């Protein structure tokens, strides 16, 4: 059995990166991003990247001009095309889109999730009511089911998927933690090669087979590592003092 476990992000990504490749990157905002993979791909300055991700990293609200995640790739001009659902407060992303220096395809969040799920599951396309009657439906086939308009959306795969998991075993079985799951499970299925950045690699037998989120068949490589976790909006409440 080939060894899926690598020492770190550098070793896991060493021989599989190339200019012009497509990369799916898991995460929702800063939550559940494979940050060590992102940093390594940036270090290698791989260019002309086609990325698929819910958003494209972000800028810190309290530190203008500084950002995290895929934002650092935008900053270095590494991305030529992006399929994302959300821009939000990412000014660099918004500007590159409005200036047309980046080719952005906006896909509704649920449509994006389902397109990735479909891609990984061998489904060419599907009809969804989301976006019917909006610009999202322009140029796409539409069809009526039960008197309602649906839009044909296509499945997506990528040369590489980088996902972030909480626990993994040497077979590549993965478990995610809380809302850090988000897009990671679908992306794991849709990468020609999927690299998992895992907080804890455990021994075979330690994960309950009934509780596996991503079965190992979808994961070609994994390594143990964890960048500092980022909190975009730290919202708290006070304890009652009585």
């Amino acid at each position: 059995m080939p060894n899926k476990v690598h020492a770190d992000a550098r070793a896991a990504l060493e021989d599989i990166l190339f200019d012009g490749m497509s990369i799916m990157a898991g995460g929702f905002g800063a939550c559940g991003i494979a940050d060590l993979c992102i940093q390594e791909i940036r270090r290698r300055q791989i260019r002309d990247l086609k990325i698929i991700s819910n958003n494209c990293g972000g800028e810190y609200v309290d530190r203008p001009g500084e950002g995290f995640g895929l934002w650092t790739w935008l900053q270095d001009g590494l991305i030529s095309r992006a399929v994302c659902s959300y821009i939000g407060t990412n000014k660099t992303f918004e500007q590159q889109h409005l200036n047309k220096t980046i080719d952005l395809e906006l896909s509704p969040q649920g449509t994006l999730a389902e397109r990735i799920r479909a891609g990984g599951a061998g489904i060419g396309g599907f009809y969804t009511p989301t976006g019917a009657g909006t610009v999202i439906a322009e140029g796409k086939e539409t069809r009526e089911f039960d008197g309602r308009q649906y839009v044909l959306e296509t499945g997506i795969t990528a040369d590489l998927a980088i996902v972030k998991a909480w626990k993994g075993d040497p077979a590549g079985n993965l478990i995610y933690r809380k809302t850090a799951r988000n897009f990671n499970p679908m992306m794991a299925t849709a990468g020609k090669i999927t690299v998992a950045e895992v907080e804890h690699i455990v021994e075979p037998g330690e994960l309950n087979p009934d509780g596996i989120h991503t079965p190992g068949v979808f994961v070609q490589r994994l390594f143990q590592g964890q960048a500092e976790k980022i909190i975009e909006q730290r919202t708290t409440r006070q304890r009652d003092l009585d």
Partner: protein
Amino acid sequence: MVWDRSAIAARAAMEIQDGYYVNLGIGIPTLVANYVPADIHVTFHSENGMLGVGPFPYDDQVDPDLINAGKQTVTELATSSYFSSADSFAMIRGGHIDLAILGAMQVAENGDLANWMIPGKMVKGIGGAMDLVAGVKRVVVVMNHVTRDGKPKLMRKCELPLTGAGVVDRIITDICVLDVTNDGFRLIELAPGVDVSEVTENTDAEILIDAIAEL
């Protein structure tokens, strides 16, 4: 007197019925959770992959892996569940969520909603908004009645690119509550001290006015 942000949120909380699964958007909609009556049991859905969203954490409970769709740190409840974005939007698109409360830039009298971009100037969305309005059983918009420049946001036809066509059921603004009907906007309620003329003058569409409870 007009409703402020908190009062709009409190009024929107009255839309929630016992047992509902509810998705709240960013901004005023997030505040709605603070005004749900104690005898109403509601489960909040967050499209990034959580059912049963709890209150903000105490300082020593903050967990970077536990956020809502507005990227705010939250907590879990005894009956919370986590799932992927694909499952999350299966709940939304599949009609399993009872109510979505979200903000808007413009709403048309036929229920068209625009809330994600201004061509050439600003693009924030789309995020989950298009899926939410297409799939959730009931869509309630909360927003100020007019823009900062005093221009109507409720109109015959949206000028901005749509988020969804014919999707809005009810609008709660700082001055009134309106329903979208087959015949256009219908006035349901006025904020305290607000005159009907204030609503009609600040709305770029006809408004059906019949017997309403003038508060």
